[in-house]
């Protein structure tokens, strides 16, 4: 399947991040067109496109917008989730660095469609470069009359605020993000009510991922039929894939949904020389891992689900045979334990126990019995936590055990570092320092 740069098409123009550069490539044409249309028609358009959220869950975007009650007399809000903190996810930040105006244009069109006068872009605080690039684009859009009051003489008003986070993975969970944006500790809320009905300041709120919103100008400009040329019936469109790990050319590859990992791997120059795929994850540490036996499955929401995993953020991480799966999984669990917000017991206590047991394995301790009981423990967290972080924490271990049971059993007597020399996994092994 060929690569199809759309969001990434003009990234090699160093001026793309400026409004004049973006306009030179057709930028803000979609907005001009959108402002002549009925907002409801835009919601229908996005519904018909079949666009699904690129933040991980794949929820249909137009459907989400249509849940916002109209003529309810309440203010509406758009919140862009730019918290990208999922281990392995590294596509929203590059989009914001390279093409920030696509995000801003998408924000304006989306706000017009859902009748929001205020939009917020919540960017993780640890990436100031993304924050300044997006803020610069917002300023330019305001100066060009695309933001502010009575935009292009339509009577539509919109103010966009770029908000910097301060280091908390849980704030990527949409309701925790709202609490954070309201100036509270970022802890998830009970759902329902869903944000579309009672979100920011208890008003109707649409929360979408950066990449989701960046699709909007292209769909508005080029239409549903064009968009549906890419991907499958259930997973239409293209995807900014970010391929990381032991490949020869890690980086950004934009392709239709439905491309296979083998094809992406091929574009990425294959595994580093002399090495093979050991395990890979289609989109973030929260989705179950796969092996070399799964390289030919189309990267769509439905095919990944059928294979027992998820497309997630669509940012595959690939590890070669030098890597200890015990060590990899332990490191992810240390992350979940650190990031658990502490609100509910299964996740708070569960991440503590899973991590403790895995750390024993990593250091060559524990029993075969514990290899089994840890599966039960994960089972007790799965589905019983307040938010999806708990489920995510219960995912890596059972998924890894499915394919690498022997390695976990061996780890109860031989440490991960004794089984696998960590230096062999380094990408600079033997290389001369810069």
């Amino acid at each position, binding site marked *: 399947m060929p690569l199809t740069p759309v969001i990434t098409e003009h990234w090699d123009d160093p001026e*793309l991040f400026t409004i004049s550069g973006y306009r030179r490539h057709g930028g803000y044409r979609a907005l001009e067109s959108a402002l002549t249309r009925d907002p409801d028609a835009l919601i229908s358009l996005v519904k018909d496109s079949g666009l699904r959220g690129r933040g991980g869950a794949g929820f249909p975007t137009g459907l989400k917008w249509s849940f916002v009650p109209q003529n309810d007399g309440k203010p509406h809000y758009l919140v862009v989730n730019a918290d990208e903190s999922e*281990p392995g996810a590294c596509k929203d930040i590059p989009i914001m660095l390279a093409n920030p105006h696509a995000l801003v244009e998408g924000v304006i069109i989306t706000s017009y469609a859902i009748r929001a006068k205020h939009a917020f872009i919540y960017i993780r605080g640890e990436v*100031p470069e993304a924050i300044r690039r997006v803020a610069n684009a917002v300023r330019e859009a305001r100066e060009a009359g695309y933001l502010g009051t009575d935009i292009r003489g339509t009577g539509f008003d919109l103010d966009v605020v770029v908000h*910097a986070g301060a280091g908390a993975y849980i704030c990527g969970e949409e309701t925790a993000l709202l609490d954070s944006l309201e*100036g509270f500790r970022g802890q998830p809320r009970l759902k329902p009510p869903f944000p579309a009905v009672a979100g920011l300041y208890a008003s109707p709120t649409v929360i979408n991922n950066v990449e989701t919103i960046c699709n909007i100008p292209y769909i*508005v400009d080029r239409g549903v039929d*064009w968009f549906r040329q890419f991907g499958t019936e259930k997973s239409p469109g293209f995807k900014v894939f970010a391929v990381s790990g032991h490949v020869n050319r890690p*980086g950004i590859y934009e392709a239709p949904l439905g491309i296979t990992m083998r094809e992406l791997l091929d574009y990425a120059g294959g595994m580093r020389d002399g090495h093979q795929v050991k395990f890979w994850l289609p989109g973030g540490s929260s989705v179950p891992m796969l092996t070399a036996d799964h390289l030919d499955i189309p990267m769509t929401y439905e095919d990944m689900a059928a294979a027992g995993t998820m497309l997630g953020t669509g940012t595959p991480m690939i590890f070669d045979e030098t890597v200890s799966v015990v060590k990899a999984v332990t490191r992810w669990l240390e992350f979940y334990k650190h990031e658990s917000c502490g609100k509910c017991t299964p996740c708070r206590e569960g991440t503590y126990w899973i991590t403790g047991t895995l750390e024993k394995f990593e250091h060559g301790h524990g029993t075969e019995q514990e290899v089994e009981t840890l599966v039960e423990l994960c089972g007790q967290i799965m589905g019983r936590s307040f938010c999806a972080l708990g489920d995510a924490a219960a995912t890596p271990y059972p998924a890894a055990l499915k394919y690498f049971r022997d390695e976990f059993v061996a780890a109860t007597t031989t440490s991960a570092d004794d089984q696998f020399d960590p230096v062999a996994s380094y990408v600079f092994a033997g290389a001369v320092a810069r």
Partner: protein
Amino acid sequence: MAISESTREQLQQLAARYPRPRSGLMPMLHLVQSLEGEVTPEGITACADAAGVSAAEATAVASFYTMYKRRQVGQHHIGVCVNTMCGLLGGDAVYEALSERLGVGHDAPTDDGQFWLERIECQAACTHAPVMTVDWEYMDDVTPAAAVEIVDRLERGETVLSTRGPAIRDFRATEQTLAYPEDGLAAEGTPVDDKMLVGLRIAKEGGMAAPGVPAPSAPTGQEG
């Protein structure tokens, strides 16, 4: 350090950026951290006043987020990503080399107060593993030797360029950016690098492109 009248005015401005003042609490905390190098009790109280909440509530918020520090960070914050991708691809060795060079462990300042070292989580840059940050600006694809050299150069006061951002300033300047993102540096450096362009270049060289774009004037989609 006492909070000045002009700082209080700035905090009010940050509150006014939002429909409700409390929403301004996070940028406010970044602002006081930029002025004081840490979030002090006085800073928290000033933020609480501007946000219209109690000092206890503001403290609870400040302590929830890892970027707000309760001790002097020093001139430069040094982060090393040790999440699975970076850590296993060499970040662990980078961290060890820096810890030895600086003589400190995780989340602590050096004795001379110049650096703060921290094991950090995934920085949304796994394609550039192993990743290090200086004052939260990217230092992609580092080796242990390169990381130590970066610290050496910072110590000598030399200019160090972020791999995908501007020249390194200091920790407080970055915190200022987080409160006021329009810092005039958006055009600095090369934020779009080879790894971000690799797929596009392969597509262009191979004559691959997305299917044709319909004429812009056609009001597509409304028929839907």
